[in-house]
């Protein structure tokens, strides 16, 4: 029987991941000849990471970064992820229709919608097999 808390992630993972992403953005933008924008990207990602690292009094921050995640927060996370997925799928469908209406081929929204639809079907099949 799985415990209520389950496996918890270190509070350092999300802040360090943010910082690493910021460094990658800096590298990409620097390579494209725009180190100034790269430094801005790094600063934004580092600030984001700092909020997560030092915002431990907030249940939302602790849950998002993983160390305060119990079964209730995992359910919140699943619902929030599903909501974000629906928003993205609607965005892709509307974007596809707008692009078609402008006489274009619907890209990149058509591919986004197809990827989302296929991922959803694959997840349903996988979950059905597992449960």
């Amino acid at each position: 029987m799985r415990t209520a808390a389950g496996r918890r992630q270190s509070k350092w993972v999300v802040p360090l991941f943010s910082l690493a992403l910021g460094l990658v953005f800096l590298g990409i933008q620097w390579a494209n000849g725009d180190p100034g924008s790269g430094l801005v990207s790094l600063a934004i990602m580092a600030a984001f990471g700092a909020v997560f690292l030092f915002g431990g009094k907030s249940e939302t921050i602790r849950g998002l970064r993983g160390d305060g995640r119990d079964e209730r927060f995992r359910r919140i996370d699943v619902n929030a992820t599903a909501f974000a997925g629906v928003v993205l799928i609607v965005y892709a469908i509307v974007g596809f229709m707008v692009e078609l209406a402008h006489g274009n081929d619907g890209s990149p929204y058509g591919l986004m919608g197809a990827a989302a639809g296929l991922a959803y079907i694959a997840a349903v099949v996988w979950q059905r097999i597992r449960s």
Partner: protein
Amino acid sequence: MRNLVRELRVEQGLSQGELAKAMDVSRQTINSIEQERYTPSLPLAIGLARYFGKTVEEVFDANGSR
């Protein structure tokens, strides 16, 4: 789901934080269960019932909600 978690916790002189620590969940989760906003998983419901020396049916009423 209607439950007696708050009554049993107060009876034992425990704070929400202490019960949360014993159950390895957040204080807010205990609060949500007591306020009947969150229905705990079966493992957590069993854990709470065992902690208070009761059965799950004695602590939780599946037919009741405020």
